[in-house]
């Protein structure tokens, strides 16, 4: 469904992605983890057309992407952004936030679509005429997911969809994403700095460091902890909680 090969990206002179290869089958779920600044968000942003300076090939559902994304692309693939507070317009009601993409794409029947999308993310109609600040963090993240779903995409690019949330709300949102993948046959690329989150949600995982994928693993390999690259091992140990002796073995990667 998604084939990314030899992807390189730059911000001015800063070479932030180096030969990134990712392949995700239809209905698959691919996880990207790694240190802050390693380029995880940039991978997703390049796919959605938010990065100008890149080289390599990106093929989505058999179609090779050029420099610009057309409307059809956004009906196929939608991104959910890292910051649930920044990504919803503060002075628009939930209804307006959800109706806008429907109108832009001229899909019609927006009323029924809004109700449907809200139902899919487990929000009842009472939320429709509220503003983002009148919702909890988890509810806001649900709205962001509903906005992505309303165009009935086949692919969701999820950038840290739960890192701003409490553990109990994180569990609700992760369950929701799992259910949507099963019920709607969606394909995911999911970015997180939390190894346990991607191990739980994804089949295949790539670990990034300094713009490169330094190691790949399946969820099973992660569960067994059989990682080889020293950075991955460090990440794996860090996920185990605080241990003074382990911290002393950490190396800085900047």
């Amino acid at each position, binding site marked *: 469904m998604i084939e990314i090969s030899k992807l390189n990206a730059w911000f001015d002179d800063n070479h932030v992605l180096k030969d990134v290869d990712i392949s995700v089958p239809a209905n698959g779920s691919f996880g990207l983890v790694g240190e802050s600044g390693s380029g995880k968000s940039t991978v997703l942003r390049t796919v959605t057309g938010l990065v100008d300076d890149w080289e390599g090939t990106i093929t989505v559902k058999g179609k090779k992407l050029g420099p610009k994304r057309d409307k059809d692309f956004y009906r196929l693939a939608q991104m959910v952004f890292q910051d649930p507070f920044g990504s919803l317009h503060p002075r628009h009601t939930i209804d307006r936030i959800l109706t806008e993409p429907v109108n832009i794409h001229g899909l019609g029947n927006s009323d029924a679509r809004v109700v449907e999308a809200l139902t899919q993310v487990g929000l009842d109609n009472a939320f429709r005429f509220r503003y983002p600040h009148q919702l909890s963090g988890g509810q806001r993240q649900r709205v962001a997911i509903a906005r992505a779903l309303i165009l009935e995409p086949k692919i969701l690019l999820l950038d840290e969809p739960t890192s701003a949330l409490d553990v*109990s709300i*994180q569990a609700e949102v992760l369950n929701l994403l799992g259910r949507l993948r099963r019920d709607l046959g969606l394909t995911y690329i999911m970015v997180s700095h939390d190894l346990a989150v991607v*191990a739980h949600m994804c089949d295949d995982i790539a670990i990034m460091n300094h713009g490169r994928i330094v190691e790949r693993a399946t969820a099973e390999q992660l569960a067994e902890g059989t990682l080889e690259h020293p950075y991955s091992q460090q990440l794996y140990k860090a*996920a185990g909680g605080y241990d003074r002796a382990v911290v002393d073995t950490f190396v800085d990667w900047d």
Partner: protein
Amino acid sequence: MSSETLLTVKNLEVTFNTPKGKVHAVRGVSFDLGRERLGIVGESGSGKSQTGRAILGLTAANGAITADKMQFRDVDLANLTPKQWRKVRGARISMIMQDPKYSLNPVMTIGDQIIEAYREHHKVNAKEARLRALEMLEAVKIRDPERVFNSYPHETSGGMGQRVMIAMMLIPDPELIIADEPTSALDVTVQLQVMAILDDLVRDRGMALIFISHDLQLISSFCDRVLVMYQGHVVEELRASELHNAKHPYTKGLLNCLPKMDGDHSDLPTLEREASWAEG
């Protein structure tokens, strides 16, 4: 942990007046603190930060505090004049705030900020202050202190900024540090490195630490003791190493919600809240 008590809080209540009525943020919180690492966990809005801020007299103007007792060593925190507060706050008790970037001055180099803070507390000349400032940066494991010394806050990463904040906190040699989610914006590895610095301070300087976080796993592996908060109440208090044996359904529920790396992809348990938890 030594048995000596540094801080006693009894029946702390924090209430805010808002246009929509009263918000009861902290409801009857009590605890004693020795030279130890005390964790406060709980979900967003449970009153963790407001508990920490009340101890330092930093409750917002629309809020009111009452307590049967708030005693920090020889100081009665419940009855301090602004002048007396200045001798305690930042000097004997320091707080690392939830948003480090906003706490640093954006138009001043990091070195100048540390020097300024140092000279507020110590009578030394400029050269001496500069040396001490560089030492501070080394103490928080910044590898290239000269470079960081000369840079502005926006030129440092989140992890650096947080370490700089901790360096500034240490200058007056406080007896108690309240760290409010000091690491939640950081990488896991940097997060643990910052915690190791705090850990060493408790061990080497005999400091007491209140560590506020919503990350149960982190708290249980790092702290000596944990208070679990729900809707302003402490619903459970236990030894951190015993967190997995928690009895309260809220604490158990929070622990169950965490995804695990066991390769199991089935749905996570979610938290079923019960009204009785908030009656405490």
